[in-house]
């Protein structure tokens, strides 16, 4: 370790130093060096001791929380594929098939995103920040498996440039970059992002064929169009249903949520209030289901609220996207309101507008826009309180 450090310091660093040939690329060196080593910087002003946490550790914790859903997603891709073809496959075969499909998505997402980040950092001369480590992992998890890689690359590029770098990088963005990537793909290439044919890979080799009566629709898609689905609540919970790569398993998302809440990295207030919001909207729909216009709508509105929470990307969005501290509400009171409205709107959009069954994405992006407004009013309340205190004082004196 010491030897490696000495090698880097003496051999690799000099060209990047002030006056060196590669000084322009200092952020690249700095990014790689600080990945390997936490630098020996000491506190120069203020407190002489500091907390052991930094942004890298924070982001790494979120990635840890995402890993179960990634692994499960890989397996599920294979499971769905072989299921659609009616082939008996071992667990390993299923996982391998999925891994071959999903890993390139992860590589493309990180490659494109980090590439652009590095470029911006070199141009602007600021150090490479960790935000994209999570975004790069989230993007493949919220895309359908059959999305062409170039579309994924384009969406990622859009998210990083328009969603983040134009605002000044990590910590400055208004929208959740990963969701922006999804929204971009959703509106730019709708036929690759929704419908019945994108969720399960049905590429066939010679001699293989899709089984009779196969439908590639997701449980949520079924419900939105016909009001019924063949998938059982248990399957929805475990995640053995078609959907975006990482969004299907509520069980593993709960595991991730557990880690985020336990470490304090993800806000339990947002998660809980979003679930409450979704429940309230679900119950309202359940109550008013008989009054809906069409029988399909009636059936969709009658879906028990707790199943609504397990469908589509609701759980994934609430746990991993809504809790993004940068684009979400920043005050404690604001978090309750923000989370509640995300849950509430997600179910509402999903049911009222079957063209966008993925209401969570739109709900969170909408609430990203609203978060500063919520915070504004929460802070205004604090300011009013302070002014009132001063007025009382002068009135009393």
């Amino acid at each position, binding site marked *: *370790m010491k030897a*490696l*450090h000495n090698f880097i310091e003496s051999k690799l660093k000099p060209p990047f130093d002030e006056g060196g040939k590669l000084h322009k690329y200092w952020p690249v060196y700095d990014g790689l060096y*600080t990945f*390997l*080593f*936490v*630098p*020996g*910087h*000491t*506190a120069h*002003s*203020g*407190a*002489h*001791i*500091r*907390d*052991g*946490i*930094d*942004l*890298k*550790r*924070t982001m*790494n*914790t979120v990635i840890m929380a995402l890993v179960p859903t990634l692994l499960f997603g890989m397996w599920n891709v294979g499971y769905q594929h072989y299921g659609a073809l009616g082939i008996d496959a071992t667990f390993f075969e299923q996982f391998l098939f999925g891994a071959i499909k999903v890993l390139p998505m992860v590589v493309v997402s990180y490659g494109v995103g980090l590439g652009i980040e590095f470029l911006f950092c070199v141009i602007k001369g600021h*150090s490479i*920040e*960790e*935000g994209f480590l999570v975004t790069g992992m989230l993007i493949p998890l919220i895309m359908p498996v059959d999305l062409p890689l170039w579309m994924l690359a384009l969406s990622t590029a859009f998210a990083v440039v328009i969603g983040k770098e134009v605002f*000044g*990088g*990590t*910590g*400055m963005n208004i929208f959740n970059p990963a969701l922006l990537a999804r929204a971009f793909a959703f509106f730019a290439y709708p036929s690759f992002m929704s419908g019945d044919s994108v969720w399960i890979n049905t590429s066939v080799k010679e001699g293989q064929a899709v089984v009779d009566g196969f439908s590639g629709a997701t449980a949520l898609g079924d419900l939105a169009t016909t009001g019924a689905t063949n998938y059982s609540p248990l399957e929805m919970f475990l995640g053995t249903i078609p959907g975006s790569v990482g969004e299907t398993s509520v069980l593993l998302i709960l595991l991730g949520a557990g880690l985020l809440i*336990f*470490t*304090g*990295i993800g*806000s339990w207030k947002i998660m809980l209030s979003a679930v409450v919001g979704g429940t309230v909207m679900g119950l309202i729909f359940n109550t008013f289901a008989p009054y809906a216009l069409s029988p399909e709508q009636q059936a969709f509105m009658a879906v028990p609220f707790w199943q609504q929470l397990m469908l589509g990307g609701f759980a994934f969005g609430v746990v991993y996207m809504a809790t993004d*501290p*940068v684009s*979400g509400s*920043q*005050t*404690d009171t604001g*978090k309750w309101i923000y989370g509640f409205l995300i849950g509430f709107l997600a179910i509402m959009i999903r049911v009222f507008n079957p063209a966008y069954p993925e209401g969570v994405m739109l709900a969170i992006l909408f609430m990203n826009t609203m978060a500063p407004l919520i*915070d504004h009013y929460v*802070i205004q309340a*604090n*300011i009013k*309180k*302070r*002014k009132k*205190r*001063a007025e009382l*004082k002068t009135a009393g004196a």
Partner: protein
Amino acid sequence: MSDVIKIKRGVDIKLVGEAEKVFAPAKQVETIAIKPDDFHGVRLKLSVKEGDEVKAGTPLLFNKDNEQVKFCSPVSGEVAQIVRGAKRRILEVRVLADKEINYEDFGAADPISLDREEIINKLTASGCWAFFKQRPYNVVANPSAQPKAIFISGFDSAPLAPDLGLLLDGQEKEFQAGINALAKLTPGQVHLGLNADKAAGRTLSGVKGVKVTKYAGPHPAGLVGVQIAQLDPINKGEKVWTINPEHVVIIGRLFLEGKFDARINIAVTGAEVKEAKYHSTIVGAPIKNFVEGNTSDKKNRLISGNVLTGTKVDADGYLGIYDRQVTVIEEGEDPEMFGWLIPKPDKFSISRTLPSWFQRKIGEVTYNLDTNMHGEPRAFVVTGEYEKVFPFDIYPVQLLKAIITNDIEAMENLGIYEVVEEDFALCEVVCTSKTDVQKLVRQGLDLMKEELG
């Protein structure tokens, strides 16, 4: 019996190297220094030159904008050196101390029989005025102003903080005389905050003429700012004065004996100190009196004050005038491979991403922390983390953002009058983005003072 106010938000960082409750043999103070940097924002002028003979209580410096406020020598002797920095800014005024201290005579008097004016004149003439701090802005108080109240915190909750009961032991008479003088300075109350969970010691618990409030809970419960916020938060246009209890004792001596007798007790603490003990010394004493031959061989950081708010000093530096503690910890200059990934147990964290939370759960754990930043500075990302250690009805991040953008109105609205740097020290410690919070707060206070006075 007074009510107990519970401070919920905060954290006690327990460090290795608490001072043993005994006094080390007293060392002769050979030189002292008064450091203008301790009096932030005051424009100072010298009233002595090198070679002048001074007594304890002879002015060394005075406030250019308010000549009544003087900064006096705590010892008698010869002005040895005036240390200047860039642009001839005065860094230190060093005085070579006599073996036996000669005092200027300011005349003993019972503060109860004096009026406000006379008390102020005595305090300003003798140099005791420097001990009064004013909020807002955290500056030396202006004697012509009327504070709505005076606040004294009777306990220190910072890491490795000395026990004030021991620091002030046996000084009941002086402390009471000081309090009597303070009572004349404000039309409001003199508040004394005590620790609800620990005995305060004879000096503090026996005092009369103050409003005692007890506080329970973790640091920053002992910060006077937290106590003000609980009892009587500062509104726009109001002023509150604060003073340390050990300085009240010095004021007491002025009235009892008529001299500026600036002897104080301090604690020498920290993991790299060989003998962590209490010391009797004088305001402005040299750091070497406490650390020479008393520290480990590692590369250490010497701090005048505690690890949260103290000032980094050199081995030939001097004790800050408001400090009651010297702390020595190791410099953390070693890079750590994958340090952001490995959950090592020797780091402190309020988050649960490190085993620190578990250690604190299962028992008393003391950390041996160094000065490493454990990461690089970033933009604000994580939310809700300052709030865990910031017991004010203030939105800390929003206030800091107002400071960064120089938005005076927003700063005022968000409560900048109620806080000083030290109130934000724990925020700085726990910050994921490694923001220099205290520096920012100082910047905001300076701007407010400049614009609004």
